[in-house]
C-alpha cells in the first residue's frame, strides 16, 4: 500500500508536468487548428534560458530563473507565431504542421550546436530535502514542481472560463467565423494563445530542469509525444479533460515503473492511446468537429 501511495504521488508530480505541456498543445490545436510541433522545443528553449540565468547569475533565485525561462520560451513562441503560424493559419493543417516541425528541428539542432548533444547539469536551486506526508516521501523539488504546474493549470482554467478574452477563445475554438463576426479579433487572440502556451511551457521547463537536475537539447521529444497523446486521448473539447488525462497518464506510468518495470514506462501512453481511441475515436471527452 505504501508503494502504491508513493507511486501515485510520484505520478501526480510528473503528470502535472505533462499536463502543462499538453495544454499548450491543446490550446494551439483547439483554438488555431494548428498542430504546433515546435511547442515541445519552445519548452526546451525555456529550460536552457532558465539554465543560463541560473548558472550565470547564481544569486537570482528560483523566481527569477523561472521568469527567464518564461521570457525565453515566450520570445520564441512570439516569433514563431508571427513568422510561421500566422501566415499559414487557416490553410491546410499540414502547412503549419510542416512549418512548425521545421522550426522544431532548427531549435533542437541549434541548441545541440550551442550546448552540445548530451544532457548538461541543471542547478538544483532548492535545498535537497525530503518531506514526509504520511507514508509518502517527496522531495522539496517534487512538491515545488507539482505546485507550480497546478498553479499554471489553474490559471489557464480561470482564463478560459472566467474572463471575457477566455470566453472569446472558446468561441473561436468552436466557431471561428461566428466569433469574428461578433467582434472578436481572431488574429489577436490566436497570437495571445500561442504566447500564453509558450510562457507556461517556459515555467514548466525550469521546474522540470530543477526536478531532474539536467537539461538536454532533445528533452522536448518525449514530452512532445506524450503531450500530443494526452490531447488525442482526451479530445479537444474541454481543456480540463486534457489536464485530467495527462495527470492520469503520469500516475499510470509511475505505477508501471513501481510494480512492473521502468523500461515499460514510456510505452504506457501509447497503450492508453490505442485502447481509448479504439473505443472512443473522438477522445474521452469529445472533440469539436472540424
Amino acid at each position, binding site marked *: 500500500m505504501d508503494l502504491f501511495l508513493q507511486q501515485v504521488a510520484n505520478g501526480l508530480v510528473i503528470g502535472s508536468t505533462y499536463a502543462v505541456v499538453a495544454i499548450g498543445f491543446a490550446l494551439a490545436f483547439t483554438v488555431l487548428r494548428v498542430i504546433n510541433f515546435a511547442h515541445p522545443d519552445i519548452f526546451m528553449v525555456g529550460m536552457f534560458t532558465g539554465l543560463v540565468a541560473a548558472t550565470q547569475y547564481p544569486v537570482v533565485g528560483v523566481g527569477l530563473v523561472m521568469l527567464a525561462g518564461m521570457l525565453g520560451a515566450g520570445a520564441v513562441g512570439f516569433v514563431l507565431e508571427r513568422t510561421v503560424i500566422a501566415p499559414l493559419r487557416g490553410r491546410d493543417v499540414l502547412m503549419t504542421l510542416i512549418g512548425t516541425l521545421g522550426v522544431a528541428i532548427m531549435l533542437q539542432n541549434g541548441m545541440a550546436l550551442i550546448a552540445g548533444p548530451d544532457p548538461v547539469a541543471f542547478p538544483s536551486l532548492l535545498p535537497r530535502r525530503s518531506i514526509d506526508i504520511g507514508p509518502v516521501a517527496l522531495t522539496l523539488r517534487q512538491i515545488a514542481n507539482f505546485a507550480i504546474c497546478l498553479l499554471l493549470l489553474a490559471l489557464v482554467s480561470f482564463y478560459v472560463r472566467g474572463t*471575457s478574452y477566455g*470566453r*472569446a477563445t*472558446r*468561441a473561436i475554438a*468552436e*466557431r471561428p*467565423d*461566428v*466569433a*469574428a*463576426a*461578433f*467582434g*472578436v*479579433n*481572431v*488574429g489577436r487572440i490566436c497570437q495571445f494563445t500561442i504566447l500564453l502556451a509558450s510562457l507556461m511551457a517556459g515555467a514548466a521547463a525550469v521546474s522540470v530542469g530543477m526536478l531532474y537536475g539536467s537539461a538536454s537539447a532533445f528533452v522536448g521529444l518525449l514530452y512532445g509525444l506524450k503531450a500530443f497523446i494526452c490531447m488525442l486521448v482526451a479530445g479537444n*473539447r474541454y481543456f480540463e479533460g486534457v489536464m485530467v488525462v495527462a495527470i492520469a497518464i503520469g500516475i499510470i506510468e509511475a505505477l508501471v515503473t513501481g510494480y512492473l518495470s521502468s523500461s515499460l514506462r514510456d510505452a504506457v501512453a501509447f497503450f492508453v492511446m490505442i485502447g481509448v481511441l479504439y473505443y472512443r475515436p473522438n477522445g474521452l471527452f469529445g472533440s*469539436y468537429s472540424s
Partner: protein
Amino acid sequence: MSALLEVEDLAVSYGAVPAVEGVSLAIAAGEIRVILGANGAGKTTIIKSLLGLLRPRRGAIRFEGKTDLLRLKPHEIHRLGVAWVPEGRQLWNTLTVMDNLRLGGFGQKDDTRVERQIRLMLERFPRLGERQDQIAGSLSGGEQQMVAIARALISQPRLLLMDEPSLGLAPLVVRDVFQLVREINAAGIAVLMVEQNARQALKVADWAYLLATGRIVESGPAAEIAGKESVQVVFLGGHA
C-alpha cells in the same frame, strides 16, 4: 434613398466556381428587405461577403455611403453596427446561454450597456432567462433561434443580417420569428434577410430581391413581387 448599405456589382467565387455574379442591392435605415432564392442560389454567399467572412472577386460594398467594407476585417465590420443571425443558428453549443449572450457584446466599450441589453433580452425571452446557465446545445430549435437573435441584438446593431431565420423551425415558432423581425425593425434596426419561406418573408418585408443561380432576376416592393406570376410559380407553390 440614402442607403445604409449599398452593394454594387458583387461577384464571389469558390475557387473556379462562381457563386454570385454581378449582384447589386441596397437597404436604407429602418427598412426590411429580403433576398429570396432557392438552395444554392447564393444567398448565404452574399451575407458572408457583407460580414467580411468571404473575399469577393469583384464589386463594392459601402456602409453609410462611405466606408468600404471590403477593406475591413469581420470584427471591424461588426464594430460599425452590423450583426448576424447565421443560418442554422450556429450558437456556441458548448457554452452556456449566458456566455453566448455575453459574447454578443464582446468588444463593446460600455459594459453596463451590455449588461442592460442582456437583461432586456432575458425579459423579452423569459424562457432564456430560465435557461441562462444551460449549455446552448441542449436547447430546442426554437429556443436556440431566440438565443441567436438575442445574441445579435446585444450590441444594438444598426443593420441585422438574418440568414434563413425560419429554417428548420415548427410553424408556430416561424410565426413568432417573423413577428420578432417586425418588432426589431420597429425599434429602428434595418433588417436584411435571406429566406426560402417566401410567403411569410414577403409579408414583413418592404422590398424583395429574387436571386437565381447567383444573379438578381427580379426586384421591387414586396407587395408587387408577391403578386408576380413567376414568383407565385417558383416560390409560393403554384397560382394564387
